[in-house]
């Protein structure tokens, strides 16, 4: 399989963007909670991205990406409408178990709002009462509010600075939801590891089942390298084939956060190397432009 065409692109902010990619088989197979591994070009790195939406009719899947390092920033520049991705494989991971919970809180932090969406929708479709809690740093970063709200019975938006919704972290939203509804069966949270850790702590005392979606570094995504291993209770699991969803009360988040720093030095190098080649390219383009003008 090859030639994965980008059929739509949307920019939510200067760091987050959405790509809709044609892949009819994947659109048919994808389930909430699953992810893909993408290589944008032949020399690229394999990076995991959650399937934020899928449309069987159009035959497309949607990825929402935050530009954090070399690969995701480069994709932000080159993945334009009509271009193709070199490789995309999946859907990987065990689909999220959409339990028979009657009342759930679906928590998405920052970019985590996107991967949370298909699960919230699935819960809604299975008849649950869905309380959406989303958190952003500020009002300008908010995206998919309407889309998310549409599959929630209640919706709480939190911002660090209070520029939209309530002021505070998503844990504040969870606290409010728990206070109002003593009968919450399950909390599902996706976002940065610190946030998921916070959510798990917020529900632990109430003994509410809390599922989180882990995002360790990955290579193959097929259970072959062990790079994605995470500590769950006293067991070691491979997030790509055993997860990525796990019981948040058992996850060793500190271990996850340490392991995410494995390649900090190399990531920095890759970014510098790339930025420098971008600068050089700009200079070359500028020189060529100047030469053209001088003629």
């Amino acid at each position: 399989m090859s030639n994965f065409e980008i059929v739509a692109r949307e920019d939510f902010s200067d760091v987050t963007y959405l790509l809709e990619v044609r892949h009819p088989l994947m659109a048919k197979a994808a389930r909430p909670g699953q992810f893909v591994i993408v290589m944008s070009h032949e020399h690229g790195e394999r990076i995991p991205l959650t399937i934020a939406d899928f449309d069987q009719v159009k035959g497309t899947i949607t990825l929402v990406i935050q530009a954090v390092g070399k690969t995701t920033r480069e994709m932000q520049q080159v993945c334009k409408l009509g271009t193709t991705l070199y490789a995309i494989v999946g859907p990987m991971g065990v689909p999220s178990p959409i339990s028979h919970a009657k009342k759930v809180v679906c928590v998405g932090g920052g970019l985590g709002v996107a991967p949370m969406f298909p699960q919230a929708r699935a819960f809604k479709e299975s008849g649950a009462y869905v309380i959406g809690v989303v958190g952003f740093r500020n009002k300008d970063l908010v995206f998919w509010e309407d889309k998310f709200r549409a599959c929630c019975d209640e919706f709480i938006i939190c911002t660090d600075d209070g520029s939209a919704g309530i002021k505070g972290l998503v844990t504040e939203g969870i606290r409010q939801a728990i206070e109002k509804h003593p009968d919450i069966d399950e909390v599902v949270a996706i976002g940065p590891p610190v946030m998921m850790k916070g959510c798990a702590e917020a529900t632990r005392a109430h003994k509410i089942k809390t599922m989180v979606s882990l995002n360790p570094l990955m290579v193959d995504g097929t259970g072959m390298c062990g790079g994605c291993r995470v500590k769950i209770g006293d067991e070691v699991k491979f997030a790509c084939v055993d997860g990525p969803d796990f019981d948040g009360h058992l996850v060793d988040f500190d271990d996850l956060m340490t392991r995410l720093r494995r390649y900090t030095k190399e990531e920095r190098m890759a970014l510098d190397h790339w930025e420098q080649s971008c600068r050089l390219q700009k200079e070359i383009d500028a020189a060529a432009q100047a030469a053209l003008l001088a003629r």
Partner: protein
Amino acid sequence: MAKKKTIRTIPQERTPMLEQDPRARAKNFEEVSYGYRLQDAMREAERCLLCPDQPCIAGCPVGIDIPSFIEKIGKKDLRGAYDVITATSLLPAICGRVCPQENQCEGVCTVGESLEAVAIGRLERFVGDAAIAEGWANIPYIEPNGFKVGIVGSGPAGIACAADMAKAGCDVTVFEAFHQPGGVLRYGIPDFRLPNEVIDAEIGKLVGLGVRFECNTLVGRLFTIEQMIGEMGFSAVFVGTGAGYPTMLGIPGDSLNGVLSANELLTRCNLMRAKEFPNYDTPLPIGKRVAVIGSGNTAMDAMRVSLRLGSEKVYCIYRRSKAEAPARAEEVHHAEEEGVEFHWLTNPVAVLDDGKGGVRGMTCIKMELGEPDDSGRRRPVPVEGSEFDFECDVIVYAIGTNANPIMGQTSKLKLNKWGYIATDEHLATSVAGVFAGGDIVTGAATVIEAMGAGRRAAASMKAYLGIRDSNLPYVVPDESGILFGIPLRERNFARVRVA
């Protein structure tokens, strides 16, 4: 007529193969061995006694007619030798390089009883390389039979099965999860042992047979085996997904940054080209002092890759002694030459934390060999009080792999108690029309065994589909060598028909 050869009349010494100097090669990824030249191959061919009982053939898991291909080399008939090999084996340039010959064909060679065995592997590689250089390929006349066959996994097992089914006239598609085909040949075995060009050339021949490769396809998740047999219209499916799931030691400190599996190291380096970082984006941990745990082929590859990436010291830590090391003898020898430091009878008990999430070193314990265990090897037992600390910053586990769980998670295929796919003696699985072979059935084994399994499964699949190879002898009508526009060289001996 030439006089009959005897053990006394043949060249007594095995013909050496030119190799890069160990000091130079430990710093580059170019192939270690240059292979035989024609004169070397002819001399080595001289050493084969053409034994009437041919023990070597039985020693080869796919039963290559070894004496006849060697005899052809002796007559400078390389094309003839190639035809003999490819009558049974598909990837001579690969097997000649990576087979553990000392345990297979060469291990039972008659010459080996008194002298060094005939270098069958090197001769096979020589013929395989000649075929690549000359562009030879035995593409037979294939009559399509209308059956659609799906192959899951493009390792040696899948490739071998695909070739046989394509030759039988089936429409064959190979599905591979990675973005490039080849399985362990591609992601595991490094370039200096098996250059990518050799893999590309051998896979190119399959494409020549009409086999389609669909990469980026994770079977089980993108579609299931049951869907393949049902809605996708495959008449039969072969599963050769390998046994890639790496084992971790489970000792304190296992999850520290700096501890990784050999599979991760090798995949980053070979498939993702991390050795060319940052021109390729994938990074790799390059330790100053690297300790590799284990002593199989995977361990040797991890060590030799680490040396080439620029690690100052590379240690091999193995709980048994050199005699029990499961790697090919040549790999251990090469690793020693290149400067790996071996610590036999040593076992790690804990990884030491550097306080920043990384590795400072390791505590090991000395072992001694006790009574033989189930595998017949003497069991290593710890020597009490012999613990010692060891400085290193990267630790690579090469202590074996388990069954990959995806097939089990996504299909009704019956697994055995270790999680491998259960098959009968014909390699049929519990699902009708689905066959399996290679590492996913036997656990980690060898390239040629996986290929052999792929071929055996193909034979069963043909029986299942009712495809029979015609046993009518095929007579070439005239010596012009062209029949139906197909040159003599490329003709098919076993025409195929559907029963």
